[in-house]
């Protein structure tokens, strides 16, 4: 809808503008880090490491972006991720096979998506409360399954976990003269596929456009003949399934289950989406922006660590400061635009 009417009057939609700002800031920040701090930032592996560490966060943030575009919120994603990790680890350790464990991960995610989607869309309960309950339930179940950390001891899975894509020409020569190839984990490829699929869904498919319409204005979406209940249900369903996938990717990265896994991931995911230009009021957002939001968040943390601010409080204080900056920037930019439109 937006594209049809928006193109003639304004060159960029809100979504595109916010995304462009994020990508721009990310690029400037990274180049500055390369110029001033050097070191690790000069190697491609640095970006790859950021992707390796955050593949599951990227996947979860994509799901959250869809929910937020639809005008909702899902804070159960981190806890579901943690529950998936723990259940899959226990299943594998009790002699399961890898294929079924993937199904298990998807199943748990799907289950959470189904129940939460039903409660929110059909019974019309506030999404915050439902997903809060989902978060409590998933965290509680994780500790009921096991309070102690569990390490995966499964041959086939270990092979999958250690499988890495090596790109020699992006590597660098280490001090002892050996070529260290750049390594990407399988999880990053999964995340890339997820980002592309969600991007296509949001941009070109009818369902994706329905999410925007629903988030922008629910009653006009209803009048346009969009089944709002079904659309909202599907947004939570997708988010649930993506949390399941994210859990599996998380497990492939760490290879162990722990009750404190993915602690605070929901807030990181929300922060990534916001930095990427998604508005919590709905109707505005883009999954590519979310990807860069995650990268920006990680880059800030890396910069803080490599500039020698080792005290544990600096990381979150700078993250908070950065978040503040982005949120204010968005608010100012958007209010200026709306003023322009009026005049």
């Amino acid at each position: 809808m937006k594209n049809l009417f928006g193109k003639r009057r304004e060159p960029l939609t809100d979504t595109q503008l916010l995304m462009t700002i994020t990508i721009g800031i990310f690029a400037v920040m990274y180049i500055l880090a390369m110029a001033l701090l050097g070191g690790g930032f000069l190697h491609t592996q640095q970006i790859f490491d950021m992707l390796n560490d955050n593949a599951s966060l990227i996947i979860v943030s994509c799901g959250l972006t869809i929910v937020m575009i639809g005008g909702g919120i899902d804070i159960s994603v981190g806890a579901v991720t943690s529950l998936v990790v723990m259940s899959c680890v226990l299943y594998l350790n009790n002699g399961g096979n890898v294929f079924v464990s993937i199904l298990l991960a998807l199943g748990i995610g799907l289950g959470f998506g189904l129940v939460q989607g039903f409660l929110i869309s059909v019974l019309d309960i506030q999404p915050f409360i439902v997903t809060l309950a989902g978060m409590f339930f998933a965290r509680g179940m994780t500790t009921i399954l096991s309070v102690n950390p569990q390490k995966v001891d499964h041959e086939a899975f270990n092979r999958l976990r250690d499988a890495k894509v090596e790109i020699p020409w992006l590597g660098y020569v280490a001090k002892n003269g050996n070529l260290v190839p750049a390594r990407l984990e399988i999880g990053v490829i999964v995340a890339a596929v997820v980002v592309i699929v969600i991007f296509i869904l949001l941009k070109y498919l009818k369902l994706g456009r329905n999410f925007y319409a629903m988030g922008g204005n629910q009653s006009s979406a209803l009048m346009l003949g969009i089944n709002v209940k079904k659309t909202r249900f599907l947004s939570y369903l997708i988010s649930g399934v993506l949390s399941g996938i994210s859990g599996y990717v998380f497990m492939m990265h760490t290879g162990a289950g722990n009750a404190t896994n993915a602690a605070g991931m929901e807030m990181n995911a929300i922060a990534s989406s916001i930095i990427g230009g998604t508005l919590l009021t709905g109707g505005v957002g883009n999954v590519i922006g979310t990807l860069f939001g995650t990268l920006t968040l990680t880059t800030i943390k890396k910069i803080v660590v490599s500039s020698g601010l080792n005290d544990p409080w600096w990381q979150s204080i700078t993250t908070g400061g950065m978040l503040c900056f982005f949120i204010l920037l968005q608010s100012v930019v958007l209010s200026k635009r709306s003023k322009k439109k009026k005049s």
Partner: protein
Amino acid sequence: MKKITKKLFQGSLSQLTIPLIAIALLLIFNLIRDPGFFSIGISHNNDGNAVLAGNLISIINGASELAVLAMGMTLVTAACKGQDISVGAAAAIAGSVFVKVLKAGSSISGLTVLLAFLSACVVAMLFGTFNGILVSVFKIQPMIATLILYTCGRSIAYWINGGATPTVSSHIITAIGSFIPGIPIPTPVLIVLFVAILFRLLFHFTSLELFTQSVGINQSAARLNGINPTFIKLLSFIILGVCVAVAGTIGVSRLGLINHETLLLDVEMDTILAVAIGGNSLGGGKFKISGSIIGAYVIQMLTITLYAMKVSSTDVKAYKAIVIVILVVIGSPVVKARLSKLINSIFSKKKETVKGVQG
């Protein structure tokens, strides 16, 4: 006009039904499970004071911080159509400031405690103002605006005390955290009572309640009627700041130390839950502080009941989630409409007589 007042009255009545039903259900459940759950005895604490003891007392005592926070949160929710998720982090900051000021003096007297509390209040109000300005002036959704402080609040608390978890020991602090000698009721309960009375007086002598509701229901209409929405929103956050300082002080006094990581951990979620269970819409507008207070006690009663059933503290969350879902499903508009239809068809005669009395 008569119709509207009738509607409003019924609305406020039905708002309190869910939390009251929840409490009743929990009480009945406990009565069947173990009647001894309700026994209240008088025991002697370490100082030799006669104090009340029992599960019910520990429920009412334990919910104190939650109840105080829920009162402030109700105002913010009503005015800003959103919630403050930084209350736990802000309480950690307030607690840290409280301890920092106490530690600065050579000895702890009544005056230094008061001074420490006031400085904690000022700091918490400043952070509340920060959140409030983001929400009211920059028009950012409350959850996003407070996400900033949520992210970095506990680190700031950490930084205030230089990464340590200092302890304070003084009979005044013990008195605030547990019992005042000679009074068998736990002090935090008295503090909740005091704060609740303050709120009542505030609503009685000012038009804050009406203004907050009108800003929450329709901001532009409120502005056209001469209410300043920016100020009302900002004020609600500042009042929440005071509540945060009180909760932080109670939390610190209870333990006699400040642990920035664990002080009131995850309390923001419980607080929002208390507001919702109390029948207040999280989308702003009409509110009832008493509902939120009852909501806080429902949550604490649920927790204590689960503890009494030997559920470990880490597993409690899962059971809590199930109960919450049941509660909100019963309270959801769809189920409510079906239920009231059902009840109407059964008690149609009775309902009419009740209506007659109200009119």
